[in-house]
């Protein structure tokens, strides 16, 4: 019971921190840090969605940035057409409404994950890592070749997507919109993982053959988790596009997939909340190191190596006093 309370306490502390952050940075006279917080929450959402697949399902996807990028481009392309009044492929009119663009990003991320997952999940292990990477690379080069939408240089748009009754241009409002979506996802995903689906998903990680013998076909479970994860990553990408008011093929670069994996591992594999913490630590570490030296990666690289070699289990496990579930 004591452990459970400690993890609960940690969750509440995290929630309090997320809610108080804009107020806190404004109180110390650094309101520009709100944008940093928004970025952390967005990457946290993407990393937590990846944890569903990697941490709970045991499927190491090295192409998660693809779904993130698709979500981002959904927003960017819709905003582009809304701005110049044309239509995507001559059929779909543009939109600068969040209630149109964000669900579109979610659905497109999910559809891409469904298609890529349906093919990739026929392989396992190293081959799965590499085939997800390959699909992500294909999409990366696809967006590079789309000259209409900026190609290599990317596509900037403004303003942010509009939400009825809210001013998304205001950094604090946008921060809270992102925070609500993140917390909403964490609550729903937590419920889902406690339900039968979550148990089956852990079963996939532990022993697929045994799961099949129990009458649950692993393929369907894996594909469902992969699709959900891709959809949420698409939503996160849509938010990131809005945060930056800019999308570029960089969103789909394979190093972004690597960053997401690092966040998941750093925070704690299979802990759901841990990856949000991992995103916070990684982004803050990058920001602080970058202030200190231009060559911050020369410090970050060995830190990652040391993390893997010596600190297993992730930060969430350390703080919550639990080993990975």
């Amino acid at each position, binding site marked *: 019971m004591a452990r459970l309370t400690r993890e609960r306490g940690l969750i509440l502390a995290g929630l309090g921190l997320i809610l108080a952050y804009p107020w806190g940075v404004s109180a110390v006279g650094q309101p520009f840090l709100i944008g940093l917080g928004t970025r952390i929450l967005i990457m946290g959402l993407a990393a937590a969605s990846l944890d569903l697949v990697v941490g709970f399902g045991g499927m190491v996807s090295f192409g998660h940035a693809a779904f993130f990028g698709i979500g981002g481009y959904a927003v960017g392309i819709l905003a582009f057409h809304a701005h110049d009044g044309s239509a995507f492929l001559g059929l779909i009119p543009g939109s600068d409404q969040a209630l149109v663009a964000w669900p579109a990003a979610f659905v497109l991320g999910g559809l891409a994950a469904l298609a890529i997952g349906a093919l990739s999940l026929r392989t396992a292990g190293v081959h799965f890592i590499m085939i997800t990477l390959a699909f992500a690379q294909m999409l990366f080069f696809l967006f590079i070749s789309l*000259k209409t939408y900026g190609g290599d240089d990317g596509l900037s748009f403004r303003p942010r997507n509009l939400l009825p009754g809210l001013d998304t241009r205001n950094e604090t409002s946008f921060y809270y919109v992102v925070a609500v979506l993140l917390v909403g996802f964490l609550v729903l995903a937590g419920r889902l993982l406690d339900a039968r689906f979550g148990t089956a998903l852990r079963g996939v990680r532990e022993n697929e053959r045994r799961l099949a013998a129990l009458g649950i076909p692993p393929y369907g479970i894996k594909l469902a988790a992969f699709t959900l994860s891709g959809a949420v990553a698409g939503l996160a990408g849509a938010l990131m596009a809005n945060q930056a008011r800019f999308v570029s093929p960089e969103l789909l670069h394979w190093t972004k997939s690597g960053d997401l994996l690092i966040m998941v*591992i750093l925070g704690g594999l299979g802990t759901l909340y841990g990856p949000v913490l991992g995103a916070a630590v990684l982004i803050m570490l990058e920001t602080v190191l970058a202030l200190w030296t231009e060559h911050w990666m020369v410090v970050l690289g060995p830190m990652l190596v040391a993390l893997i070699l010596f600190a297993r289990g992730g930060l969430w496990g350390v703080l919550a006093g639990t080993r990975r579930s």
Partner: protein
Amino acid sequence: MLLAEQILNGAQFGIMLFLLAAGLTLVFGIMRLINLAHGSLYMIGAFAAAWAGDATGSFLAALLAGTTAAAAIGMLIEAAVLRRLYARDHLDQVVATFGLILFFNEATTMLFGRQPLFARMPPWLAGSVELLPGVPYPAYRLAIIAVGLLVALLLYLLVARTRIGMLIRAGSSDRQMVRALGVRIGVIYMVVFGLGALLAGLAGVMAGPVFSVQVGMGEQVLLLTFVVIIIGGIGSVRGAFIGALLVGMVDTLTRAYLPGLLKTLLSTSEADAVGGGVSSMAVYLLMAAVLLWRPRGLFPAHG
């Protein structure tokens, strides 16, 4: 006429990929290690060679410096970091070696700056050879093909005909059994890794005068190398050879001809953009197709 030239370019690129893939596939096959930092060894070889070549003016010195630096640093990271990762799952390996990439890229930037280095060709290979009447081809590129074929032959003899090669093959199919039979598998690991690093360095040295020597050159070629070994089948040197030639050809030929073909359909600038994108995608499409057709690659080494 031009086609012959492009085929040679494809072969030359494929051979370069083979030098990288041979080491990677052995490391992968025997130690079950995904080493993303393999591309860094290629970069280290290229930088060390460009630096030594600039300092001494001798290609031989460049060759020695590049291969030694790559092999030495390779064995160093094997002993310091990678050895501890062999028993870990692939996820840990991916993240740790990703960290190594960040380190090597940034350290190289600090040492040499962001400007690409110039690597000189040996003067005796600077000319061109007329293979077919009217088709001159750079001698240096032919030399790369020759060196690569020679390395492939030596590797084949090493793996198929020698005692250490026998142990490598045995380690690739069942390392537990090899260890149980009293072989010091740690030594084999080190030899294999050092050899792989040396070949990556050699590829870097030879690539220097053809491509630009700059930070990030490792990753561009790393992903293609992974495509090669996945297509060829993990752990198989023969698979790496076939896979490398296949990838080299597909990449070079689509890059050379696709934009031209698309120009019949699209405007020039669009055809260039789309053609460039699609030809970059082509090798990944090839890999996905091979994996869906044969999930373990063309020549899987394990039973």
